[in-house]
């Protein structure tokens, strides 16, 4: 009893946070460290050679295939992010500013539901929708809009972007919505009162104040999509495969864990660099005085 009472707040705080912290340490920090270490080793068949080598990185960076995959991953993830956030902003704006308060939760709920239903099956269904004889093509041909099926829809980067934009929609909408909700409505009235038009008020007040949400949305969409595996495999075709697919191949099919690790480390580095650029760059852009 007295023991519990007399321990300082700091000790109690550490004691309480210890289980999740230790868990994250042993199952996140340690494994990531292990991947890093492994990426400097090499593997012949099943035996790991523990001498330090940069060979994996040399191979990963010099082989055009790996370079292409890495670059393509960034491009596709970037395109996905832009599309997703651009599509998401009006929705977040609509729900925050034009939906009556008691209906907001319902809208958010409606937006989140599709996200919680089997990812694999959802991605597969996009294949059904976008395919040569798919739903979209047969519908458009039935309506007489097109004469023959469109082929640029499936098995390329387009289909990956569309599918990912769908899969990550709530990840983009929610942070933007939250930051829009936080905007004190009287600020907008003040701007109008000071003579700005609706459009300028949006540009000069709403948008800058929503920036943290937009940045969060960009990061939270971009980061996982760079490493997405399922979508490129199912709808990407040869022109749509990404770095994650190669990492998986190295680990599970070619049994070259060190090279796979190096690719994983490079992917993480890329993600980190892009994330830093985005958060610093946009932050500066918004805060810069005109």
């Amino acid at each position: 009893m007295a023991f519990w009472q007399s321990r300082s707040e700091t000790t109690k705080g550490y004691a309480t946070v210890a289980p999740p912290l230790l868990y994250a340490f042993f199952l996140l920090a340690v494994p990531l460290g292990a991947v890093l270490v492994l990426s400097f080793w090499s593997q012949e068949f099943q035996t790991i050679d523990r001498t330090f080598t940069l060979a994996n990185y040399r191979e990963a960076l010099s082989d055009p295939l790996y370079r292409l995959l890495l670059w393509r991953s960034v491009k596709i993830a970037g395109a996905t992010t832009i599309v997703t956030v651009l599509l998401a902003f009006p929705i977040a704006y609509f729900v925050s500013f034009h939906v009556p308060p008691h209906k907001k939760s319902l809208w958010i709920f409606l937006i989140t539901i599709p996200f919680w239903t089997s990812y694999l099956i959802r991605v597969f269904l996009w294949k059904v929708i976008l395919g040569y004889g798919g739903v979209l093509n047969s519908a458009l041909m039935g309506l007489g809009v097109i004469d023959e099926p469109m082929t640029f829809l499936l098995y390329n980067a387009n289909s990956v972007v569309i599918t990912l934009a769908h899969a990550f929609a709530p990840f983009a909408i929610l942070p933007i919505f939250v930051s829009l909700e936080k905007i004190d409505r009287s600020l907008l009235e003040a701007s109008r009162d000071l003579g700005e038009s609706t459009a300028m008020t949006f540009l000069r007040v709403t948008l800058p104040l929503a920036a943290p949400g937009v940045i969060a949305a960009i990061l939270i969409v971009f980061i996982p999509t760079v490493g997405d595996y399922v979508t490129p495999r199912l709808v990407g075709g040869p022109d749509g495969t990404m770095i994650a697919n190669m990492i998986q191949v190295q680990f599970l099919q070619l049994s070259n864990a060190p090279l796979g690790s190096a690719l994983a480390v490079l992917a993480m580095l890329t993600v980190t660099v892009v994330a830093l650029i985005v958060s610093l760059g946009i932050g500066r852009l918004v805060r810069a005085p005109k």
Partner: protein
Amino acid sequence: MTGPIIKLDGVHKSYGEVDVLKGIDLDIAEGEFLTLLGPSGCGKTTLLRIIAGFEEVTDGVCLISGRDMAGVPANKRPTNMVFQSYAVFPHLTVAQNVAFGLRRSKLGKAEKAAKVEEALGMVGLGGYGARAAHALSGGQRQRVALARALILEPTVLLLDEPLSALDRKLREQMQSELRRLQRQVGITFILVTHDQEEALIMSDRIAVMFGGRIAQLAPPQELYRRPRTLDVARFIGVMNVLPGEVKEKGPAGIEVRVDGLGRARIEPEQAPSGARIGTGWAGIRPETMSVLFAGEQTDRSVAEGEVAEVTYYGDMTYYDVILDGTDRPLTISMKNLIGREVLERGARTRVSWDARSIVWFGEEAV
């Protein structure tokens, strides 16, 4: 005559580098209604939480009924608290809230229920037992918090700004109700407030705190009439402060000269015991001075001046008057009696005062 029910001796409290309480000595008698009064951040809540057992002293002792409370956790102390936010459990009914502390008592079910109903009746919530707590109004929550604490018959009841969240009407009503309740149950109450009026209305004694120290501990009347420091004087009501000088000193008091008011005799209890010859500060309350209307006669001291500002309050008018030969205005309050005119700004007027009401502060820095 028993000893104090609570005795604080040299209580210090610091959070890291910050000293929040800097040596509190305080004896509280059984059945007393004591108020801790002071500006925001002066350490009132901290002191209360030390007595309740939620904070430990950095130095010093806290005795309750003669027992050292060091290491005794809050749940083992004979104190109960009414929290500023009331802390009424939202997942329980009113009756369950009030019965919360009875869980470990050996009373039978029926006895408990009777006690709960009695406690609810005491705070004017008879019959509200089955209500859900989260559906109560602020004033009702306050009463539930009171009943819940009182039902345990604590040695001391601690109240942290219990009325500050209520609107004015309800607050005034609860002030008199709390006072009545305290007399009825005879439990020692320690109330924290930053509202000087509330402190004056309710307390047997008031401890005025500034910056982690008790500046003065006295019953309301004494505190108002003879504040010991300029801080206290300014915190409680309005006090005009004027520069002056002690001219003579004797066993029957001191002889001072005050700017604008001239010479006056000050009784020993109106001045610090060690008052010395030399300059210092004098104080006089607005209501002990009057504005004299044309032709009005008085045998009190009189001076002339100009009305610099008039503030009309309905029942009262406050005049700021600059006396001839001085540069700072004095505030004077006048009752608005029928037939009594309200002076205009800029008018010349005579002012009178009762020299016995002057308080001397000595050389304290302003």
